[in-house]
């Protein structure tokens, strides 16, 4: 299904103002925002043969409540953004793979249509998304038979290619895609026998536990994991066991075998940063994505990052919002480069993860003259708590002094927390660092 339109690029220029790598929700939102901010010399490069990214295979509803104030499916959400790209005439190139990128923003890409080309970009937005953690990264024992795959692979086979990958299914891990696929495969006539989660809580959204597992009486086995895999050619069964809640080590006396032909892995997503590394972009061990400031600029000048390549999100609405900011920031950066004399002195202020906080973004603020911020300017600061907290409080301090405090109802590692730091709340005078921390009693500590 190659999508053809006049705006699909056929010959590539050797220079371009803005190159966006990835045509999923992040790349599309960044492109639309950049265009609307006045940059019309840009190109979206997409590896797949159509725009939309992983949304195309997410045929379930639950997208867009924030962004469009209605509940859409993945293809509908993608469709709306693709329409915005088409209406504006934003150029894009599908089936195109970026092979190389360096810190001078020289990009080598290849596609059947344009062959091998090199483009020098004024600014680059990294919007490559993420990939699933594979079985190898888990170290599950047992044979290497057919029938073991990531849930995203099963989702693609079922929803885009029209094949049901199995009849009797066990799901390892309880991320949202795993929960969604439990329902999806049930809808297609498969029997989902269990969803097995090593942690004491699901890493997916509570509403997905309700509408994807409980609605169909699929057991969610918390504090359990797969300890053995059986089968030679095709998977025949798995052995699962409870784990010691303190050490997470399996308890062999609790082992039980479940006969199944399919094991789906839903054990986490990893930002896809091969190209970022190639460009010399420093990555954060907390998010596994680029280290960025509040404008989503990486530490390599002119290279920005947004969406799941930066940190894994739960909601596409938040990806769109973040990516639009990256699009505008890239255009502002291009404008500043045209008049270097006007570039203001900036001070770098690190934002640190305090108690209970993981995967914080941004990792630092770039502060110019305070007078240049409008008083109502806010910067999203996002993180995941390290445990479930009921009634927890999020504290932001500048050099120890409390500048923002927000009480929450419940925080769980499965749901990203978004704080909005008001520029006006920053103390006058120099700041050495900000810290973000969670105050409260962790549920499972």
């Amino acid at each position, binding site marked *: 299904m190659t999508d053809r339109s006049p705006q699909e690029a056929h010959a590539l220029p050797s220079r371009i103002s803005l190159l966006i790598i990835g045509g999923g929700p992040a790349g599309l939102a960044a492109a639309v925002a950049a265009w609307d901010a006045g940059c019309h010399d840009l190109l979206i490069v997409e590896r797949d043969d159509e725009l939309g990214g992983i949304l195309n295979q997410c*045929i379930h509803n*639950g997208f867009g409540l924030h962004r469009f104030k209605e509940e859409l*499916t993945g*293809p509908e959400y993608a469709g709306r953004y693709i329409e915005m790209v088409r209406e504006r005439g934003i150029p894009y190139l599908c089936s195109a793979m970026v092979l190389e990128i360096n810190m001078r923003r020289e990009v080598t890409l290849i596609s059947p249509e344009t062959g091998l080309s090199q483009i020098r970009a004024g600014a680059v937005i990294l919007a490559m998304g993420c990939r699933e953690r594979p079985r190898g990264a888990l170290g599950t024992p047992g044979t290497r038979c057919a029938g073991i795959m990531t849930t995203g692979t099963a989702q693609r086979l079922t929803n885009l290619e029209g094949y049901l990958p199995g009849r009797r299914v066990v799901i390892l891990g309880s991320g949202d895609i795993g929960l969604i696929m439990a329902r999806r495969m049930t809808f297609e006539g498969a029997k989902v026998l269990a969803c097995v989660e090593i942690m004491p809580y699901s890493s997916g*959204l509570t*509403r997905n*536990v*309700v509408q994807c597992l409980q609605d169909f009486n699929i057991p969610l086995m918390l504090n359990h994991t797969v300890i053995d895999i059986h089968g030679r050619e095709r998977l025949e069964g798995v052995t699962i066991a409870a784990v010691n809640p303190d050490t997470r080590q399996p308890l062999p006396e609790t082992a039980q075998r479940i006969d199944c032909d399919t094991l789906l892995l839903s054990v986490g997503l990893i930002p896809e940063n091969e190209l970022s590394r190639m460009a010399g972009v420093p990555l954060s061990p907390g998010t596994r994505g680029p280290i960025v400031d509040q404008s989503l600029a990486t530490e390599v000048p002119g290279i920005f990052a947004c969406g799941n390549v930066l940190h894994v999100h739960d909601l596409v609405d938040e990806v769109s919002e973040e990516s639009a900011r990256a699009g505008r920031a890239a255009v502002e950066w291009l404008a500043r480069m045209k008049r270097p004399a006007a570039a203001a002195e900036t001070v770098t202020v690190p934002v640190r993860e305090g108690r209970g906080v993981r995967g914080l973004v941004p990792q630092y603020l770039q502060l110019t003259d305070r007078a240049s911020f409008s008083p109502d300017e806010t910067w999203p600061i996002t993180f995941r708590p390290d445990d479930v907290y009921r009634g927890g409080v999020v504290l932001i301090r500048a050099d120890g002094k409390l500048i923002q405090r927000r009480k929450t109802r419940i925080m769980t590692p499965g749901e990203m927390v978004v704080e909005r730091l008001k520029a006006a709340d920053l103390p006058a005078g120099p700041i050495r660092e900000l810290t973000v921390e969670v105050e409260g009693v962790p549920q499972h500590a």
Partner: protein
Amino acid sequence: MPERDIICIGCPMGCSLNVTVENGEVRSVRGNLCNRGVRYAHDEVTAPKRMVTSLIRVGDQGPPLSVRTDKPIDKALIFPCLDAIRQARVNLPVRRGDVVIERVLGTDVNIIATRDLG
């Protein structure tokens, strides 16, 4: 008065709702952050409903057409609705939002396409 604790599936917040019920009618809902929670609690206690999303096969090859209900359908009708979708045929081209099954199973729910195809 009988109480039920349910989790709202109206949005990703997933509010924990405490619902008091009398004679099959909702008397009070607590724990909701918005009105969606009240509507959901009422439906869930009296006549639970769910959105259904699935696929219609189009020819022997090529991607299937993704579809959804245009509003939530009675929970008891999920599997009959899936069967109706499975048996449906569509003529291409189809545009996002086109009705592909009108009033499925005699309800007021339509099945609509969620992508352009063909």
